[in-house]
Structure formats: structure tokens, C-alpha cells
């Protein structure tokens, strides 16, 4: 389903070179590795927020390497929940379209649609970001250390909840994390970058 061939990206140092990656439909992968090894950059390249130096990416057989970010059908959840402070929870979800109440109930936040962004806790914020990302019906969801700012107990609970939602929807996903325990609980396969 997702196929990355010979991905190369370098700034002042080479982050990854000739990297190949394949992910099947509904499969969940975790990428681990030390800080600065290029995990986040890899995700940003897959969704088109960064340009690759070389290599190609295909998604469901379609070459998306040069496609606009907006048209790739890829979802991304950032390290901290990127929620728009001028909109309430419902307003943020409406940006993705779909059934807001159903999406909120899926992530355990029933009745949150009129809540302001400022009133959300870190965990609630990430759940809203997940609900919104899934509402957009991405072909693959990328998660860039979304649990790292939460406390241990909460992050593990959220890891399980998010995995359950993704499996329920048969949505493929790649999680970037430096936490091996988190990776083991979340993913079907674990890749390590050095």
C-alpha cells in the first residue's frame, strides 16, 4: 500500500539515504531511533511538507512523490496537538468534515464539541487531533511522537486507544517515537533508524 523507494534526505548531514519502506493495508509500523536521526523528517517527506533529495513514494499504486501535500491523502498528528485556538473542538473537527459527534465518541470525548481549545488537557487535545485526522479519511496516518508530552500512564492508555481506533478503521499508520515500550504496544512492526 505505502511504498517508499530509495528515499534520501540531507541537510548539513545525511539524515537517511536509500531508505526503503513498505507498509500493507491496515498495518501499523513504529519507527524508533535517537533524536536527530531523521524520524520526523521522514514523516514530513512522506506527507510532502519537506522535499526529498531523491527517491519515490507510492500510495495505493499512485506515485505521490511530487504531489501537493493537500492532495496526498495522508494524515499527520504532530508532537503537540495542533488545534486552532480561534475555533472550538467542533469547529476544529469541521475542518475535516464528516460526523463530528461520532468521531468524538470514537476517541472517548462525547459532548466535547462546544468545548474551547484552551480548556482541553494534553491528552484530550491529542484525542481531538486524532479524531480530526481520522475524519479526513486519510489513506495512511502518520504520528510524530504524539504521546511524548503526556505522562507515562496516560500515554500508554492513549497508545492502546489510538491503536484500537486505527484497527477498527483498518487504517495504516506510522508512529515515530523514541519510546520502545510505546512502539511495542502500538505497532505491528518496528523499524529502527540509526
Amino acid at each position, binding site marked *: 500500500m505505502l511504498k517508499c523507494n530509495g528515499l534520501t534526505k540531507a541537510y548539513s548531514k545525511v539524515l537517511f539515504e536509500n531508505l526503503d519502506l513498505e507498509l500493507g493495508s491496515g498495518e501499523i509500523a513504529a519507527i524508533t531511533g535517537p533524536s536527530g536521526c531523521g524520524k520526523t523528517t521522514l514523516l514530513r517527506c512522506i506527507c510532502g*511538507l519537506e522535499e526529498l533529495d531523491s527517491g519515490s513514494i507510492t500510495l495505493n499504486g499512485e506515485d505521490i512523490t511530487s504531489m501537493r501535500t*493537500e492532495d496526498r491523502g495522508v494524515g*499527520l498528528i504532530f508532537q503537540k496537538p495542533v488545534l486552532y485556538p480561534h475555533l472550538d473542538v467542533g469547529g476544529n473537527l469541521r*475542518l475535516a468534515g464528516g460526523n463530528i459527534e461520532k468521531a468524538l465518541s470514537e476517541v472517548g470525548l462525547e459532548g466535547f464539541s462546544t468545548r474551547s481549545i*484552551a480548556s482541553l488537557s494534553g491528552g484530550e487535545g491529542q484525542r481531538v487531533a486524532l479524531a480530526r485526522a481520522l475524519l*479526513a479519511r486519510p489513506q495512511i496516518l502518520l504520528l510524530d511522537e504524539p504521546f511524548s508530552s503526556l505522562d507515562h500512564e496516560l500515554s500508554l492508555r492513549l497508545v492502546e486507544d489510538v491503536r484500537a481506533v486505527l484497527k477498527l478503521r483498518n487504517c495504516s499508520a506510522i508512529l515515530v517515537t523514541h519510546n520502545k515500550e510505546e512502539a511495542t504496544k502500538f505497532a505491528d512492526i518496528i523499524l529502527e533508524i540509526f
Partner: protein
Amino acid sequence: MKNIGGKLSVLAFSSIVLIPLFLALDRLVWVAGFDPVQWFSAIEANHLSQGSVGFTFLQAILSTIATIVIGLPIAWQLGRYKWRGSGLMRAILTMPFVIPSIIAAMGFLAFVGPHGMGFRADQDTHLWTLIIAHAWFNMALVIRFTEPVLSTLDRDLEDQLRLLPAGKTLWGKLRNLWIPLLTPSIAAAACMTFIFSFTSFALVRWITPLESTLETVLADVGERAGISGYEVYANDLVLASSLIQFTVMLASLWLMSWLQERRQSLLPQASENSNLKANPRGLLILVPGLFFALAPLVTVAWSSLRIPVREQGELTYHWGVEGWVEAWSGGYSNTGVGDALLNSLGYAGITLIVALPLGWSLAKTIHELELSKSRWSRFLDVFTMLPFAFSAVMIGLGVLLGILKLDGELNSLWLLPVLPHIMLTTPFVVRIMLPAFRGLDPSYDEGARILGLSQSERFWKIRLPLLRGPLLVAITFTLAMSLGEFGASWVVARSGEWDTLPVLIDSLRSRTGWDPLIQPTAAAAATTLMLITLLLFMTVERFRPKGEGGMF
């Protein structure tokens, strides 16, 4: 409010602001009689003020629109893209706001008038010249209010939107991100621009001499008001104009305060984006913008050295320093530039000595009340902004008429202009120092207490060094405002001997009859004031906290 200093500062501020204005109002009502219907009907009945309400609103609304149209694309380019020398560009583009309005008026007249580019041909173009001049003067507000939102916006917000269906198109991005995010900042800048245009004095007085705004009506008839049995209509006009201005400004300030709160809540970003991209095409906006910002100022300096000569009906020019010689020797005025500058510096110095500690103490008191969660904090916060609801001419008249009520002899007191200057500058000191106090980490003071430092030691060794930046901004801002203040000084200080530099420039420009050296002399005096203001402005820019935006 436990501390004695706080109580004293509130008492002093109340006395300085409220007593003269209350006395002035009392005097005017005593002469005119309490008949509001008569006051307001006098505006349209009197030829001096006929049409002034409509013209005031018209020029203020058009000026606000023009300012947004000119300022916003510049702010976008500065905030969204990487520019070499962006600090210098920012300084140049925001400079017009600190330039005394009398210099702005001179610059525009010299630039578009018959001795410049000759655009200002008839009465129709007078209005447009005024609007462009107001846009020039106020575009810094749009830049300072919106650019921090643009430059510090978390890029993740944009990137996230690109990945969502609602952000796929340009309109989607505008509708869902940029418009809601920028609207409070644009509206706040528009509000301030409207207030400044509504009460603009020097620019209206010089650029549209055939039209009156409420502010110029106040200035023109004010000196005839307050005298029992003498030209009673003047009292009606002053009362009606002041009340309209006060109401409009109070409403605008309330709106502004509400918008500022909304604006702050939409600013979750912390630091400036470092990975901005270059955009060479943006030069098509920035270069004309820089030219627009600099042209009137350069023209003032240029016209101080360009001497017109009329020979056999032909007008020619030569370069010379005769204007500078006349300006400094006082050949065309009661005082030379040197004496007027000394007067201005003297007034500015005394203003600083009073306004700075007063503003500091008021800001500190408000902050302490906020920390103790006292309801008085909000009241005092709003109360210190009260002078913002009065225009410069209104304050000048308030002082003049208030003092007249006490003792007519006091009107010739040389110290008199200091009072309106203190009224006008103290709220600015409070506005600069209050965020600084709020942003000061309380643990610094607590740590010093644990170390055993006394209150005065903590002030000198901890608080003062930590607040050095905003304090220097407040000092230079107070000096610059006092030096360039024109409206109130024009009303209060027109004895000749104690002319300030802006009043001297105005009196030089006002000389009737053609004399080849009048324009260069006035321009030389204006250039002197401009250079001092620019020096102060560059100092402010060095110490201004980055990324906060707003007026200061």
C-alpha cells in the same frame, strides 16, 4: 492597596487628569448654560463648524481603509518571508508613527505641493492627500499589530490545515486560518487608526485648510471659550465637539480593548519562525513601501536646502543653507530653533521627571492589585487609560480653561505646557511598564528575599536591571512624545517666548505673504526636530521587546 506610594500615585494622577478637566467643564457650562440641545445644534448652525462632524467621520473612515490597504501587504511580506536587513526595513516602515504630526504635514505638503511633485492641485485632491498622509502616519500600526501574528505563527497550524479537506484551496486557507487569525489584529489596528485620524490636528490643519474636523474646530474656537458674556457660541461648540469626540473615542477604546483581548487569545505562538523562505517578488511591495515611508521625511530635509527664487515671473531654485541660518537665528520668529529646542527639551525633561515615576508607580500598583486578585485592578487599569479618550487639543483646552477658572494670571506661566504633556504621556508609560511587570518572573524577587535583600536593594539590584529595556523604551517614548507634541502645546503655549519646536514650525509655516526663505526656514526647524525624534526612535528600537507588536 497597601503601599503608600501606590495611593499617592493614584491621587496625583487623579488630580492631574480630573481636576483641570472638571474645572474646564464647569467653566464652559457656567458660561454657556446647561442646554445640550443648544450645544449640539450650534455645530451645524455655525459657519465655523458646519459640516465638521460629517467630514471628521468621512476622513477618519477613508483613512482607516487606506491604512489597512497599504499596511497589510507590507506586514504580510515582512512577517511571512525572509529578508536581508529586515530589522532596518521594519524600523523604516514603522518610523512614520513616531514622527511628530507637524513634520508629517510639512513633508507631505513639500512632497505633493507645488514645490514638490505638484499632485496637490485642487480641493478634491486635498482630501486624498490627507487620507494618504494619515495612511502614511498610521501604517506602522497595521504592521506592528499584524506582523507578529504572521511571523510567529506556528507553522504546524498551516501544515496541518494543508492536510485537511478544508485547507486544500487558497480560499479554504484564508477562510479557516488567515482571516479568523488576523481579523482581531487588523480590527485593533483599524480602531487605533480611526482614533488617530478622527482626532488628527496638524495634518488636517495644514493639508485640508478649507475643511474642518471637530479637533480643528476645538482648536480654532477654544481660545474664545470660557469668558462670561463673550462669544457664547464658542462654549457651545467646544462642549458639543468635545462630547462627540469623547463618546466616539471611548467607544473606540472599548472596542480596541475587547479586540486586544481576543487578539492575545489567538497568539499561542512563542518565538519567531527561523525557517522563513525568501520571496524576491515581494520586493514589488516592500520597495514602494519603503519609498512611501521615507519620501516625505527626505523631502522635509531636501526642501530645507532648496531655496526658491522668483525672477521675472519664473520660479527657479538654488541650493543653500540660508533657511538653516534663519531658523537658528530666529529671523522669522519670536524665538530661534535653538531657544525653541531648549524650551522643548526643558518641557520634555520636566514631563519625564513627573510622568516616569508616576507611570511606573501606577503600573506597579495595578500589577500588585492583579496579583492580590483585587477588583480595583481592572478599575485602575481602565482609569489610567482615561486620557486616551481625550484628544490633544481637548486636553490643552481643558488645562487652559481649568487654569483660567482658578486664576487667569496662571495662563502665562511658562510651566503650563508641562501639565498636558504629563497627562498625555503618563498613560503611555503605564502601558509600556505594565506588561513588563506582568512578565517579570516573581521567583526573581522571591529568590532575592530569601537571600536577605531589602526592598530598596531588590529595586536597585533586581527589578531595575531586569526592567531596564522597557524602562528605556518608556523614557525615550516620553521624551519623543513630549518633544513632538503639537495639539495641546499649540493651544496652551502660544506666547512666543516659550514656543516649543513644533509650535515654532507651525508659526513659521503660518506666515503670510511670499518670502523665498519661509519654506526652507520652516523645513530646517522641522528637520532638526525630525533628527532628534529619529535618534530617540532608534534608541527605542534597540530596547523594544521583540515579537509583541502593538503600538509600542
